């Protein structure tokens, strides 16, 4: 019995020592991570004003057409034709479509404010539209192919290079017919982001999209973000609470009250 108690005590002491070491290691890793606290929004995001678009009378601020992702992608001929078809379909969809939130990569240039929660194991991007991106930084790899299927925000893993978060994303679904325009991609699309703080109130995402099936070359863009100072917490959106836009005869309308 005495031996058993001694063995148990040794086991517990060993466990505590390992746990303590692990906690200390984790704290050391934490200390090295950058501070991105605060609320951020894409410079090119629309809806940073009170109305549904950003072309306030007399205001020359950015509109949706200024989005970087609205610019022509370097598609090959086949996918350029597909993109044009998607454009036509999105025109129909905009007459009657409703949706809740933005998919990747469009969410990174969306009008939603977001917060970034950085831990040693993962970094979370939490958007006001309730989109959440999990960037696992614990050394894991992507799931094997037979465990992957297209997802709105794909599957992301990452690592830190000094103060830069390098993100690798695959398995992204492309609902290009929707009005929250995403560029269209094949299932082979692969996204690399390098996100870093470039000023006290500035973040920047250098996003490179690679798709050997659809693109003739990698497509790289810099997405700038600025700190939001007019709110002190994230307020999430919801599509169901007071939806006053019924679709009647295939068109969006306004219900009286």
């Amino acid at each position, binding site marked *: 019995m005495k031996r058993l108690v001694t063995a148990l005590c040794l086991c517990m002491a060993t466990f505590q020592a390992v746990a303590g070491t692990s906690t200390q290691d984790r704290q050391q890793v934490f200390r090295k991570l950058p501070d991105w606290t605060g609320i951020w929004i894409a410079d090119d995001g629309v809806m*940073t004003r009170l109305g549904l678009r950003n072309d306030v009378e007399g205001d020359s601020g950015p509109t949706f057409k200024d989005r970087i992702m609205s610019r022509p992608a370097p598609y090959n001929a086949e996918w350029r034709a597909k993109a044009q078809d998607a454009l036509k379909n999105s025109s129909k969809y905009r007459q009657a479509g409703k949706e809740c939130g933005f998919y990747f990569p469009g969410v990174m240039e969306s009008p939603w404010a977001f917060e970034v929660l950085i831990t040693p194991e993962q970094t979370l991007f939490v958007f006001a539209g309730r989109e959440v991106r999990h960037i696992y930084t614990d050394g894991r790899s992507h799931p094997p192919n037979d465990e992957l299927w297209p997802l709105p925000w794909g599957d992301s893993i990452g690592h830190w290079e000094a103060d830069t978060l390098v993100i690798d994303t695959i398995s992204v679904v492309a609902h290009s017919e929707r009005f929250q325009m995403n560029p269209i991609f094949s299932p082979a699309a692969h996204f690399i982001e390098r996100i870093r703080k470039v000023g006290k109130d500035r973040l920047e995402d250098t996003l490179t999209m690679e798709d050997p099936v659809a693109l003739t070359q990698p497509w790289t863009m810099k997405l700038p973000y600025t700190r939001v100072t007019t709110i002190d917490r994230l307020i999430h959106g*919801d599509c169901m609470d007071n939806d006053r836009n019924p679709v009647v005869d295939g068109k969006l309308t*306004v219900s009286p009250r």
Partner: protein
Amino acid sequence: MRPDAAIRVALSRSRAPLLSALVVMLVMFASADTAVAHHSGAMWDSAKTVTLEGIVKEFQWSNPHCWIQLLVKEAGDATGEQQEWSIEMAAPIQVRQGGWKPGTLKAGDRIRISIHPAHDGSHAGNFVSAVSSDGRPLGTT
């Protein structure tokens, strides 16, 4: 209904001529038509701006969009009856980012508001800007 509900109405429709048309064409060409979080802006006529003056019946601080219910007596309306307009705004977080609060408007407030009207001619519009009837800015914190 407030006795002073027979308000002065300024209902001015203006078409910014060539420039606005070009902008709209460009926007349409780029498939960049007023993207929003919940629905597109297809129902609004962005080429037109209408200014209404009226009395707030209700301010709905709600998701997915905030709404202003505004009682307006239209100029030239011989009946003298007020019409209720529904003015759609962005989502609460975006309206809050713009400096507004749930209490920025109260029933009975008289305001002047600019909107992009609905294509179908209904009494509805997309919010552009608003001031109090004496020109004070609204929502500045």
